[in-house]
């Protein structure tokens, strides 16, 4: 089966200042993404995520390498490719004085829609993203969450086969971020849309992406499913149990989901694959030893830790 995204040896550099030296932003990036999947590109700020996604989205030309999206070359076939893909980015920006409906109509026309077809499509998207009550509100008066919903609606105006999402939930409150994640999952599930998303939110990547890749200083340093990567690195959430009278007499290594552990004085530090899922079972095992737990501390594994492990 033809991959939805194929990139080989992608390199990109930018000149710093007018006569300054060139800064290498991407180096030898190879990637293959299957159709119908949600694939995450992770990495800290400045890792080259947006540059990479922009090259695939035809907004930037690579200096080196070749990239094909939906079987089309991102440079030579850019016009044809643009008809079949779309993009939503963090911090949605559209013309401030146009209403939600006018903005959608503007972008619909840019994709060659008009007349009844445009009206139907805009109506569908307003319904889908619950924007009907705000259809006559100008963009500048929308809340951040509504702006982001409009950005997603705009990204679907041409019924794309592949969607690029550049940090789609950055800047949103947790509730709205969760809502947007739900929409992304639904689009992938119901419409079979291939989605490539960049994020620096580990939980987001975990909940959305079947597979992820890490970028570090412009290089792709690891890729795999989240469990694969966590297992490969032996990483997980940190669960600390504080006992009143010394640690419970248990073989902590055999507790469900425990990857590693360290017992010290009245404290036991456990590395658990998913603490929120395992916590109840672990506490149940501990309680059967009659030992008294006086405090529980939980620190979920974050991108920084995995990233640190991958890159050091």
């Amino acid at each position, binding site marked *: 089966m033809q991959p939805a995204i194929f990139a080989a040896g992608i390199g990109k550099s930018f000149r710093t200042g007018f006569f300054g030296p060139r800064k290498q932003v991407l180096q030898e990036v190879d990637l293959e993404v299957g159709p119908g999947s949600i694939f995450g590109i992770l990495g800290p700020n400045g890792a080259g995520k947006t540059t990479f996604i922009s090259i695939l989205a035809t907004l930037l030309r690579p200096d080196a390498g070749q990239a094909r999206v939906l079987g089309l070359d991102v440079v030579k076939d850019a016009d044809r490719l643009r008809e079949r893909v779309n993009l939503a980015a963090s911090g949605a920006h559209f013309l401030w004085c146009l209403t939600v409906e006018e903005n959608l109509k503007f972008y619909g026309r*840019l994709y060659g829609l008009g007349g009844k077809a445009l009206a139907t499509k805009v109506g569908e998207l307003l319904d889908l993203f619950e924007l009907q009550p705000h259809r006559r509100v100008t963009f500048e008066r929308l809340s951040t969450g509504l702006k982001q919903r409009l950005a997603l609606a705009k990204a679907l105006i041409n019924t794309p086969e592949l969607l690029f999402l550049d940090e789609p939930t950055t800047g949103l409150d947790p509730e709205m971020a969760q809502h947007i994640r739900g929409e992304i999952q639904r689009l992938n599930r119901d419409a079979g849309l291939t989605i490539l998303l960049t994020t620096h939110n580990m939980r987001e990547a975990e909940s959305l992406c079947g597979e992820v890749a890490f970028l570090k200083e412009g290089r792709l340093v690891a890729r795999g499913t989240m469990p694969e990567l966590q297992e490969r690195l032996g990483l997980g959430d940190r669960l600390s149990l504080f006992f009143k009278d010394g640690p419970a007499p248990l073989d902590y290594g055999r507790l469900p989901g425990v990857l590693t552990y360290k017992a010290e004085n009245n404290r036991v530090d456990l590395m658990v694959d998913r603490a929120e899922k395992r916590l109840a079972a672990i506490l149940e095992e501990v309680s059967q030893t009659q030992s008294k737990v006086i405090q529980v501390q939980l620190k979920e594994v974050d991108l920084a830790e995995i990233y640190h492990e991958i890159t050091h």
Partner: protein
Amino acid sequence: MRLPTDFYKILAFATRSALVNRRNVFAIFEMLFWPGVAIFSVGLLTRFLKLDPETVTFILIGAVSMNTIQIAQLDLSYALLYSVWAKSLKHEFMAPIKLAHILVGAGTVGLIRGFVVFVIMGFLSMWLFDMDLARPGVRGLLIFLTGMFLNAAIIGALVLALVLRFGQRAEVAAWAFSYLMLLLCGLYYPVSILPLGIRELAQIIPLTYFLEYFRHFYGFPLMSSHPLLYGFSQSVVYLGLCYALVQYTLKSALQRGTLLRLSE
């Protein structure tokens, strides 16, 4: 050009320009207030100087042309500036559009607005300062208007290229370019009084010839034997060059990452 998808892409930019103009109080100022001020101030100055009717007409033609071209080129110049201000440039170029869609779409609104300004200023000139605007006839008026709009398109396309290269900093060019061109082409004075060297520059500006053509209906001598030939051929060449320049700057923007920087 394929229809109707190309038509809708053009319509997108035309509708957007029209909506922005409708909701922008400054757009009303651009079309009514400043042209009104221009015709009053220039007209009253000619009265104060007790100029003969032919000279008054000569100067009023300059005032009408200046404002018509200014307004007509603004919509084209602003077509990308709107996107730069809204930080939405990458979304526009993410769509399968061509530069021609932007130029024709926004240019059409500019043409309509320019025509409205021409009509308003022409009416004020006739009513307040007895200018006989109808003397060149419908054909003469249409040729003059076409010439002005071609010049506005050249300025607008140049500004588009600058916006794609320099972003928001090019905003000032939207005004500066037209003033520079109007200064050189003998707007309020005959080109013959320009110093040597500058006069030669005036001859490579198409508007010079269209002004000369229109003014000859009012008894002013033609400086060149075929003003329309020079005016139209220069306009076509410059438009072609400007289009190629905008294409080049877009290609360069895709290489340099300008579209992304202007969307942040």
